[in-house]
């Protein structure tokens, strides 16, 4: 029986764990513009990534975007998750599938949709012009705002589905009891629903934060070439700079941050609130 896990384990070890170890080793090498890579054993690339203003900006932009998008997503997703969790309708499974569907369509397609909405003669500008909210078309493409909206659209379904699963398991009686004892709608939310759904909020927020940190397509397509987040910066190191040691260093830093969040999340909410 135990032999049956062997092929899967070998695959993951050979194609994921092995290359990650190789990547860590390469991050300790030195880059040279003429020889590309020089064997070495030092953490100087990590020091450079932390000290150099360019990499600092990349790291801070990524963390800032991830925090902002996670917070906004939580605010928008919570009422929707509550609605979905409490929904009693024969259409419920359809709503769940509809929430899931855009996730499976892929980030490139959805970024393309935003690009079509954001053009100067696009739907958003036309509606705002017709309504006389603005007199000149807005520049929406290649702004951080566009990236924020694009990322939120990508991660919203994850947050909604994670929190809705927890809210479904909270008995309605608790809200009724609180209401009968005189709790206002806000008190019911603040003192009953929110504390009980905390595990879902935490699990969803960690998952979404990690996904935001990893953003590639949305940042490249909606942020433009000058907007740099971690994943595009890593890609550039390999493709434009041919700088394997620095690319490996940045990749390993991103891996360390996202893995520590994921591991922290799975230890704190193991089993019962399995992440999607």
């Amino acid at each position: 029986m135990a032999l049956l896990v062997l092929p899967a384990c070998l695959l993951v070890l050979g194609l994921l764990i092995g290359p990650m170890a190789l990547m860590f080793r390469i991050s300790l090498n030195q880059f040279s513009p003429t020889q590309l890579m020089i064997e070495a054993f030092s953490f100087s690339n990590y020091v450079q990534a932390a000290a150099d203003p360019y990499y600092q900006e990349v790291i801070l932009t990524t963390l800032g975007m991830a925090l902002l998008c996670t917070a906004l997503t939580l605010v928008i997703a919570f009422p929707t998750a509550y609605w979905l969790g409490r929904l009693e309708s024969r259409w419920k499974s359809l709503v769940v599938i509809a929430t899931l569907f855009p996730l499976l369509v892929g980030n490139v397609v959805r970024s393309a949709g935003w690009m079509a909405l954001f053009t100067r003669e696009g739907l958003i500008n036309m509606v705002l012009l017709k309504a006389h909210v603005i007199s000149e078309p807005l520049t929406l493409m290649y702004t951080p705002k566009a990236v924020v909206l694009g990322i939120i659209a990508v991660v919203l379904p994850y947050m909604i589905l994670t929190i809705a699963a927890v809210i479904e398991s909270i008995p309605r009686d608790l809200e009724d009891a609180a209401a009968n004892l005189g709790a206002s709608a806000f008190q019911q939310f603040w003192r009953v629903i929110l504390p009980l759904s905390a595990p879902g909020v935490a699990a969803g927020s960690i998952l979404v934060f990690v996904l935001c940190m990893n953003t590639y397509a949305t940042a490249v397509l909606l942020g433009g070439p000058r907007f740099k987040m971690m994943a595009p910066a890593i890609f550039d190191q390999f493709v434009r700079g041919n700088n394997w040691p620095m690319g490996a260093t940045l990749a390993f830093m991103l891996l360390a941050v996202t893995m520590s969040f994921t591991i922290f999340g799975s230890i704190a909410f193991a089993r019962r609130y399995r992440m999607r």
Partner: protein
Amino acid sequence: MPASLLANLTERPSFNRVLMRTLVVVAYVIIFAPVAMIVATSFFAQEIVSFPPPALTWDWYLNAWDKPEFLRGLVTSLQVALLAAAIGVPIGTAAALAIVRGQFPGKQVIGALLLAPLAVPGVVAGSGLYMFYVLAENALDRDIKATTQGLVAAHVLLTIPWTVRLVVASLQGLDRAAEEAAANLGAGPFTVFRRITLPMMRPGIVAAAMFSFIQSFENLDLSLLLVGPGRITLPVAMLNYLEFRIDPTLAAVATVQILIVGVLMVVTDRFVKLSRVV
């Protein structure tokens, strides 16, 4: 007081209903707006995307395939996704069976290892594989990067955690009475597996196959560094095109991708209730 009590009983006042309904609508508008817009754009007659469109046309769906990068990208992506699912789903199913039914040390660690590909950012895993492939190419003196085999190997990595997770979930909910009954009636272990266990695992396996295929088909991050001239997957081809322009041609290609994913979900939903497995 009695009036407000009655209101509480007849109507369920949770938090501010108006604000709540507004946010629900906002959430679904944000989720669906880009998908709806790209489908709509694919019918705009004018090449420059402007609203409202002067006329509507089907032509882009025919012309899009004149661009070799899209046709080749679609073929490559379908090929890679099919192969990756065909390899990854049996391997992942075997592992899931062993994890649920087997008795061996280190099961927790193995379970975590098999889910690890989900936790590693795609661009990071892709960078590691890229360096691994290039070094292996130099050592073996043969192409690995930008080959179908190289892409399939990487994408199998995506299919394993989904398969393990979905099949483990379907096995855990299994009632073993039927298997015991078959064994008591004289069926050998292999017959029990083939006639009882495997059919009961079917919903999990079907869902795993669909998710594996879709995960591979729409994958961008992992593939970015592993593609090359002549071997470009559809999402990478679309990304490269979009770095220069958005037009109805691309929208038509994107709509085809949306349709493929949608049809797969509808077909799978006939076998397994998707809202229950996910």
